[in-house]
């Protein structure tokens, strides 16, 4: 009998459907891989299983009994533990306090029995051959990889029947990742069910008995792992997309390099990125989430400590100052990831949002010229077709798509011709998405150079002139022309190994 059976599971967040029809079944004693693109619903699915969020519809049976955990505690009580990607660890507690958090052995006074806790910690680490950890060290002193290992120990400390590993290998160096894969097999051999999420096909191949593929919030297929090819898996992950959304792509790139980046590194997430973005070009930045895309944009905008060389229009620029300082025609402008937090002042008007950072452009003798400002604002509102009653409407009251247009307007008013667009269509309705893509192509035709990241692969495929695929903080491949396809991007991001 199946240990877990899920049928027709659904979950909405406001108007967004995160999961529409997830079906899943898994047996005790197997490693069951979950595959899918970013946003396919895997995360929501395991969050429901682990009690972090509650589902709206459908049913889950564990051991044939109805399962609807109201919180992570309730999930643990039923023997389900999750090793989260966003770590569930507390920075100010020690390693062992974290491992046993809320399950500490206690004395008659109700206090933590430290000696017993230490003994249990060492026994646990010994049993599963954990990499060296200092039990008494405060968590905030550990590296990301070590934290991930603590998180795994914490999951195992509950002796769960079902263990969920959400991209647990992604933060681990090769050796530790290998250890985890062996551990996963061992856990399955002990009769537990391990639900394993990874974007690394090789790992899934190495340890999974079965796999379930998600797409757009629904299950597309489940396979015995040895009865399906990589190509079939990738095809099922992508499915078919309608591409009416996208404008015609006319190559407008010149030979002039607008932005040249050499050896850009930042922390452990970005290591030695080289590329050249040309005038009139849209260069896509793709790959699986968390492989350095965010860090690349942050480093380029000077928002994080980075090393390497950056040249704008042939001139070297200092790379550790925010590029807001670089306005004007030789500057650089950013559409940030967090629109509501970083890009817009929601309680200010459309006009104020548009002109706040370019106030210099319409001052005369130190005084604001309202006429000049109004003219510029009108020009932008018309050009971008921002649907606002008046320029005085508050930005917070606009739709997501129109808010994004205001940010574009703000960016264009700086007159910078190198544009960094980080997921500019996230949370934007389909119609406006099309307008934004058209706008990007129009700007490219005018000679703007655009670096464009999207978490939605088809956008890269259909809008960018070239796509740079990132893996582990490096450029794994740069795809051009016919080689730009979702399969090509996925293959570069997951399958093809760089020559070692």
């Amino acid at each position, binding site marked *: 009998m199946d240990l877990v059976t899920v049928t027709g599971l659904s979950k909405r967040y406001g108007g967004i459907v995160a999961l529409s029809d997830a079906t899943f079944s898994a047996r005790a004693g197997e490693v069951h891989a979950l595959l899918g693109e970013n946003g396919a619903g895997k995360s929501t699915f395991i969050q429901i299983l682990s009690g972090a969020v509650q589902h709206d519809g459908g049913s889950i049976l564990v051991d044939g009994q109805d399962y609807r955990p109201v919180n992570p*505690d309730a999930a643990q009580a039923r023997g389900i533990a999750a090793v989260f990607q966003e770590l*569930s660890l*507390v920075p100010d507690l020690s390693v062992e306090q974290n491992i046993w958090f809320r399950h*500490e052995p206690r004395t008659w006074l109700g*206090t*933590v029995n430290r000696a017993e806790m230490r003994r249990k910690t060492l026994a646990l680490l010994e049993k599963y051959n954990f990499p060296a950890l200092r039990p008494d060290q405060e968590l905030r002193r550990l590296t990301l990889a*070590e934290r991930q290992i603590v998180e795994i120990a914490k999951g195992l400390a509950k002796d769960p029947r079902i263990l969920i590993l959400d991209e647990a290998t992604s933060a681990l160096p090769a050796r530790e990742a290998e250890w985890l894969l062996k551990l996963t097999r061992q856990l399955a051999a002990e009769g537990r069910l391990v639900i394993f999420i990874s974007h690394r096909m090789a790992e899934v191949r190495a340890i999974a008995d079965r796999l379930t593929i998600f797409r757009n919030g629904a299950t597309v297929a489940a396979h015995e792992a040895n009865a399906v090819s990589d190509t079939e898996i990738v095809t099922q992950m992508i499915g078919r997309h309608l591409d009416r959304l996208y404008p015609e792509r006319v190559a407008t790139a010149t030979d002039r390099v607008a932005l040249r980046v050499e050896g850009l590194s930042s922390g452990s997430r970005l290591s030695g990125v080289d590329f050249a973005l040309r005038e009139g070009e849209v260069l896509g930045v793709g790959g699986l989430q968390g492989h350095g895309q965010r860090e690349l944009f942050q480093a380029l905008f000077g928002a994080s400590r980075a090393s390497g060389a950056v040249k704008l229009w042939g001139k070297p620029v200092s790379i550790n100052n925010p590029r807001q300082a670089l306005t004007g025609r030789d500057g650089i402008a950013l559409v940030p990831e967090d629109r509501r937090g970083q890009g817009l002042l929601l309680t200010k008007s459309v006009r104020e949002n548009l002109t706040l950072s370019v106030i210099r452009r319409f001052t005369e003798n130190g005084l604001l010229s309202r006429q000049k400002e109004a003219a510029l604002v009108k020009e932008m509102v018309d050009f971008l077709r921002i649907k606002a009653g008046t320029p005085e409407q508050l930005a917070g009251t606009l739709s997501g798509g129109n808010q994004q247009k205001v940010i574009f307007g703000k960016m264009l008013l700086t007159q910078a011709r190198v544009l960094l667009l980080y997921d500019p269509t996230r949370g934007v309705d389909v119609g406006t998405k099309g307008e934004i893509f058209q706008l990007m192509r129009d700007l490219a035709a005018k000679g703007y150079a655009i670096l464009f990241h999207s978490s939605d692969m088809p956008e890269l495929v259909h809008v960018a002139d070239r796509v740079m695929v990132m893996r582990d903080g490096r450029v794994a491949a740069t795809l051009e022309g016919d080689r730009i396809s979702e399969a090509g991007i996925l293959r570069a991001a997951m399958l093809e190994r760089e020559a070692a």
Partner: protein
Amino acid sequence: MASAEQTGETMQRPADMKSTTPAIGWRGRALDRAPFLVACLMLALIVGIYGSLQSGVFTLDELNLDTAAAMTLMLAATGQTIVLLRGGIDLSIGGMISLGTVIAATRFTDDPSTTALWALAILALGFVIGALNGLLISLLKLQPFLVTLATWSILNGVAMIILPTDGGSVPSWWVGFASTQLFGLTSPVWMLLVLLLFWWWFRATRVGISIQATGSNEKSAFLSGVSITRVNLVTYGLSGLFAAGAALFLVTQTGAGSPTIGKDYILPSVAAAVIGGVSLFGGRGHLAGTLIGAFVLTLIGNLVFVLHVSSYWQPVASGVILLLSVLASSVAEKAARGRVQ
């Protein structure tokens, strides 16, 4: 596909898989406790100056006196420390202290059992009002600052309605409590020890750890199964309870009720904790630091007195000390971070 052989083989611990983080060492530990050590240093300095200007400072009598003077603040700051550890702040303790004193001053009688019942009622009221704060913060998802600002105002108003001006009285045996002695130490000194004992116990309980963990990272705590609502309830409940305790002790010093006195303890309770190294961002700090901070703030008053300068210098000096402590902890924090990365 994994083979059976693979799972059957014994797992080898990768031999050179060493923890990459260095051992902390004494310097790291000292840096970690820098704010606390700075507070100790300040206290030593103040006591030193005070002792050189005034005779009889290094006696049990002086300890008894100063502890009694500091105890109201200490009780209020104990509750505040728990709230700060949770990553919140509780301004309503000002209202609770005022309300506690006016109820005591108007209801306490010479009959011990009636008085004891009212004292218990005040403590219970403190916990319930605090718990309500916690509930409002959780259920309405409001800022602790705003919720407790509102409850402070409400409690203050109620205190005014009960007793519009300073007055009323408490029985003399209640006032005498603060000077009761056991083995040469007065009851406030014993209370100080009890507070430390309470803290040692509380911090090692699951509830205490959950409160600290929630202050350290709320999301992580939630994912680990902590009920944030329950944590808020207990945290602010305890704060209210300690504020009520502070009120009961305060009337042993004043002998009367005051509907406005509580406000004098709101910011000093936060200041004492911060001077003692408790982080305003939650997750870090110990009561020992807070109590030292409370001593520092109290002894500044003594110092200003023996220096024969205007008493208005007291808040000036307190402010400077607060700034110095914040500076010290920020420097230490940066140094510690530099060592980690």
